[in-house]
């Protein structure tokens, strides 16, 4: 186990030394930063109408996934994630470094992969036409399912692909559970590093929003945004999220480990906290967020908050009630700009927080309702907030390294 051989002992600072973003706004830090500053939003309101999704940017996969065979055996969410993970490793300056990658731990937040929609619909149509023999479902699945589809559907195989393509070969863990899985991935990896149980870790997730099977799943709960796009804070009467497509990864490591290899930090990941609000009574999510805020550590006033608020209700209103207690903070909702990328939303927020701190500025508001105010000064602390559309709440404190 890595923990007994760690070079560090006792509490240590956790630095973010690599960021990989491949989103609907573009690939790489500059493309995303520029798009945020230009106020660009990439939303497709036609292909899935009346629903809308934020489609992934088009990239040349070969630069991060050189083997076509590897690309072929992945589905979109795995290609997005493997690509973004590669960007993070490049950003941290560890790509191809077998010594470091061989002991780099990995905590991935993942859902499941695409279904084969044609197979599903073929079976449902045959059923509708009266085919209900006991063996019918079995026969159709045996003949119609692609053997490799399973490898694209299993949650833990994004980690598998990252290990194969990029050689990240320390411990590997895949956390599931929608939005808060992204919080817990960061929480687990950071606490291991802080305690000397790990030196360096890759954390993140990926999500493909262009999936009708996912739209069906969230439509069960009436969570999809319909008909017309609006910023997250302007959806109260028309609640819902627009699914987003993104891969977001960060490399975190102990300060000592980063210094020893001459790596420069984007920011410090000072704390990650999470909880499970019972969500049985109004106000419970607000109370949970209040509690998590109090656990973050010393906060200066006038800072910034990057939230994964989705526009789903009632949780977005509950989060709004919490945010309004911190009116001096500049708030940015990533859901407006990137859509809702589920497990990936929190790692995306961490990446954007670290990027903003390293560039000495917060990106501009994405909303004209007054919910997001300008921030003139250079941020020294950014709180990343994530409250799941159904369950799970989390926060992180990301700070400038001075």
């Amino acid at each position, binding site marked *: 186990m890595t923990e007994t051989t760690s070079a560090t002992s006792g509490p240590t600072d956790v630095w973010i030394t690599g960021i990989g973003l491949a989103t609907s706004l573009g690939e790489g830090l500059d493309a995303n930063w520029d798009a945020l500053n230009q106020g660009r939003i990439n939303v497709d309101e036609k292909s899935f109408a009346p629903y809308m999704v934020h489609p992934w940017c088009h990239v040349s996969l070969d630069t991060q996934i050189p083997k076509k065979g590897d690309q072929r055996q992945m589905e979109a969410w795995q290609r997005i994630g493997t690509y973004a993970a590669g960007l993070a490793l490049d950003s941290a300056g560890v790509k191809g470094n077998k010594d470091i990658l061989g002991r780099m731990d990995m905590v991935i937040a993942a859902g499941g992969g695409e279904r084969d929609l044609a197979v599903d619909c073929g079976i449902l149509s045959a059923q509708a036409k009266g085919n209900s023999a006991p063996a019918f479902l*079995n026969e159709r699945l045996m003949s119609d399912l692609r053997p490799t589809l399973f490898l694209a559907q299993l949650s833990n195989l994004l980690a598998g692909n990252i290990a194969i393509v990029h050689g990240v070969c320390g411990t590997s*863990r895949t956390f599931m559970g929608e939005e808060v899985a992204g919080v817990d991935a960061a929480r687990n990896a950071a606490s291991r590093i802080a305690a000397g149980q790990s030196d360096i870790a890759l954390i993140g997730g990926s999500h493909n929003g262009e999936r009708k099977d996912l739209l069906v799943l969230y439509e069960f709960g009436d969570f999809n945004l319909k008909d017309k796009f609006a910023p997250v804070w302007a959806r109260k009467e028309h609640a819902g999220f627009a699914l987003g497509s993104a891969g977001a990864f960060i490399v975190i490591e102990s300060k000592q480990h980063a210094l020893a290899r001459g790596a420069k930090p984007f920011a410090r990941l000072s704390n990650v906290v999470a*909880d499970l609000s019972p969500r049985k009574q109004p106000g419970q999510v607000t109370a949970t967020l209040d509690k998590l805020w109090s656990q973050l550590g010393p906060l200066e006033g006038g800072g910034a908050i990057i939230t994964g608020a989705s526009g789903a209700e009632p949780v977005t209103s509950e989060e709004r009630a919490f945010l309004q207690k911190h009116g001096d903070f500049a708030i940015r909702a990533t859901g407006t700009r990137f859509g809702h990328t589920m497990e990936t939303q929190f790692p995306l927020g961490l990446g954007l927080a670290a990027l903003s701190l390293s560039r000495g500025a917060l990106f501009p508001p994405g909303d004209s309702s007054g919910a997001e105010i300008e921030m003139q000064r250079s941020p020294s602390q950014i709180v990343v907030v994530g409250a799941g559309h*159904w369950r799970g709440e989390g926060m992180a404190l990301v700070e400038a390294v001075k």
Partner: protein
Amino acid sequence: MAAPRDNFGRPIVVVTGMGIVTSLGTGKADNWTRLTAGESGIRTITRFPTDSLKTTMAGTVDFAPVEPFSSTGLSERLGEMATEEALAQSGIGSKGDFPGPLFLAVAPVEVEWPQRMELGRAVGQPDIDYNDLLRISGGGKYASFHDRFMFGSVAAHLAEKFGTKGSPISLSTACASGATAIQLGVEAIRRGETDAALCVATDGTVNPETLVRFSLLSALSTQNEPPRPRRSRFPRIAMVSSSPKAPARWCSKVSKPRPPAARRSLACWPAAAN
């Protein structure tokens, strides 16, 4: 009193309660009796028609009723049963109030065929595509499907029922998932974040599509007859990659010094956690 430490200065982690539900039965005593008698829990599948399937046997648990049935619902029920046994043995906390976090190894979740077919029937036309499913999915009629088929649903339910603390973690590392759940608990205790952890693994996913998927990867034994080789010294079950329904769970704490025998039992932990 300070907790006992190991040679690295870390808190010693001990197992104080275990529970198990498998195809052999419920509880440690029943499982041990049957296991040492050479029984196998592998049986011919009766949960659904197996016509046209290459593999027709599995280690199913069919004595734990779940209504409405889903693989995820069964996983949840098996996790509950195993946890109840482990907590009873441990005596830790009180009913609905476990003093630590939950680490849950659980199979990936998705909408299953009975529910998908229910939707298909509700569309009410001969040719169905996903736009048709989308059109009828909203409005609250299928809200329970959303909740059931969230990846975090089993953990959220167990966390609420047993009153674990903080954000429960659902994890998958394939066949290492159970070991990872234990590893997460051990690490959390060693970091001093908690004095106890509830580490659960559950899998109730024997369903037609799972069997077909594993079959297409040539991962399942097709030695269907006999499915239950009694008293065979080395039963050729070869179900290693099927979907065993074997939730086992541990609960650990360091708040009290343990007798030497209990401490020695930890020798197996690092191996289990690798």
